[in-house]
């Protein structure tokens, strides 16, 4: 476990980068259509040369149409959720905070359910889901501003987030209730459980990439401000931090990250809560290393979960089932090992 006098961040950072590259390589081979590593190299070589041999056609399409977008999407989603969870935990000064705290996932779920109910094309479902997710958070921020009148806004924000989340959850339930039980209801239910299978396309990958670059980039740049925010509003201001501006930037970036993930891949719980937490146990609370290492760790974890999702059972297991089933024991193990330093 982390001790303040050990400098092992660079080692962990390098290890995770190697692990991620290794896992991406291995993930390419997994699946119903197994492709051994040497064949992957061969296909890549032929792709670069511009002529794919006849025998490799199928491998080529499996790799480039299905597997690569899916793997990269999982990697980016893991990084996005972890970054937004890490930022929120610092800003709300509570290690038990998850990216959903201001209602973004519940909002995005309503948007998606509505889109599916109305039989909209998939791009429109993504868009509606994204907009609802962002709208839920904006509503929470507006409520906190009106109720708080500038004082104690963080607590009021968390409370407003809880209220808005529950309102949006009942709206999702309502949509499920009126949905056709043979077709729509299962579709909505499966969507909400999260999956990278249906989401794997290059356009989704590019959208996710832009979201991650923008939101994750801002959070990485604000690392030291988030450090200061962890000491509370008053102290952060006295340290010279424009807390209103930093808070707004953190919330908007985190919302962008989570809404983008949820609107493309569905609701994925746990990752944003446990990955920053586990990372903190390993490298300490300084966001200088906590933020990038959380993102790398989240990427590895999500890829692990997705590989499990597509290999454990024939067909496909929803992601959110596995994030808890794999995440919970890991988390408990880390808490057990780190219990002395924690709290």
């Amino acid at each position, binding site marked *: 476990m982390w001790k*303040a006098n050990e400098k092992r961040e660079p080692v962990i950072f390098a290890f995770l980068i190697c692990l991620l590259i290794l896992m991406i390589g291995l993930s390419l081979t997994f699946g119903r259509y197994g492709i051994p590593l040497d064949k992957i190299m061969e296909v890549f070589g032929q792709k670069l040369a511009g002529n794919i041999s006849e025998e490799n056609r199928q491998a080529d399409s499996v790799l480039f149409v299905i597997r690569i977008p899916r793997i990269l999407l999982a990697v980016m989603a893991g990084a996005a959720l972890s970054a937004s969870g890490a930022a929120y935990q610092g800003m709300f000064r509570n290690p038990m905070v998850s990216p959903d705290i201001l209602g973004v996932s519940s909002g995005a779920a309503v948007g998606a359910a509505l889109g599916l109910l109305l039989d909209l094309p998939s791009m429109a479902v993504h868009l509606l889901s994204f907009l609802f997710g962002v709208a839920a958070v904006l509503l929470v921020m507006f409520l906190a501003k009106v109720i708080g009148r500038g004082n104690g806004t963080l607590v009021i924000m968390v409370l407003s987030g809880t209220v808005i989340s529950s309102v949006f959850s009942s709206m999702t339930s309502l949509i499920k209730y009126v949905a056709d039980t043979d077709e729509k209801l299962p579709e909505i239910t499966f969507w909400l459980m999260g999956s990278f299978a249906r989401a794997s396309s290059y356009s989704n990958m590019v959208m996710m990439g832009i979201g991650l670059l923008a939101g994750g980039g801002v959070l990485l740049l604000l690392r030291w401000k988030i*450090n200061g925010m962890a000491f509370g509003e008053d102290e952060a201001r006295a340290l010279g931090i424009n807390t209103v501006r930093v808070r707004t930037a953190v919330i908007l970036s985190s919302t962008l990250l989570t809404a983008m993930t949820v609107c493309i891949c569905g609701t994925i719980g746990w990752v944003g809560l446990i990955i920053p937490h586990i990372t903190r146990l390993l490298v300490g609370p300084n966001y200088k290393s906590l933020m990038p290492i959380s993102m790398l760790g989240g990427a590895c974890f999500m890829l692990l979960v997705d590989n499990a999702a597509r290999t454990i059972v024939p067909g496909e297991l929803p992601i959110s089932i596995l994030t808890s089933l794999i995440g919970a024991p890991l988390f408990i193990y880390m808490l057990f090992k780190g219990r002395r330093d924690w709290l």
Partner: protein
Amino acid sequence: MILDIQNISCGYGKKTVIRNFSARVESGGVFCLLGPNGVGKTTLFKTILRLLPPVSGQIYLDGKNISDYTDMEFARKVAYVPQAHTPPFAFSVRDVVVMGRISHMGAFSSPSKKDYETADQVLQELGIWRLRERAYTELSGGERQMVLIARALAQEPMFLMMDEPTSNLDFGNQVSVLRTVCRLARKGLGILMTTHFPEHMAQCNAKGVLILRDGRYIFGNSDIILTPENLRDAYGIEALIMDVENKGTKIKICQPLLEETAQGN
């Protein structure tokens, strides 16, 4: 440099607790804010730190209204030393101190080598270099208070705002914190501190103000403020004030008496 508080009234929302308060605090000295609980010391303190907007009146720092400063500019002139607390995360002492450099860094920057050097220098000056790699949450109350002073000094300010710097500290740590306060004032810093110990005024050779329960203010040095009458009007107790000679210097002893006063408490 002068912190000029002009006719300030402050409070939360519609409730005004401090009315028409004026004071001038100069760098190179200690200014104590004394008064009973609930009289509005903290509110005044927060108003000076710009954490609360004043109900009326102005505060000038170096001739410029404090509301005209940006957060960064203000933090480079005035630093805040809160009461020793436990944050939710176990930052290392060096990380905590280097956070005092945020006001000297760009909006998106990380601390430079020079920022770490400044932090290290402050840790050495305060004699807590040995703590630098410990986790802040594992320190004792006295050590934490020193680290918070170090963080404030890393801001390289002209003024330190200290909120009851000796509360919750044991006898020895109270003295070591107070000694640091006096030394920093001699080195040219202006220190504005709230305290519950009237003797601190005499010990730090401070000027200050005593806020009485009826809302009046008594300004002056320890000879003016530390009288049995004033302490009775502020705290509702009887106190014995004595001047004692020790190795040629005069020291003031302020001993509260446990017997009930005529006016009651």
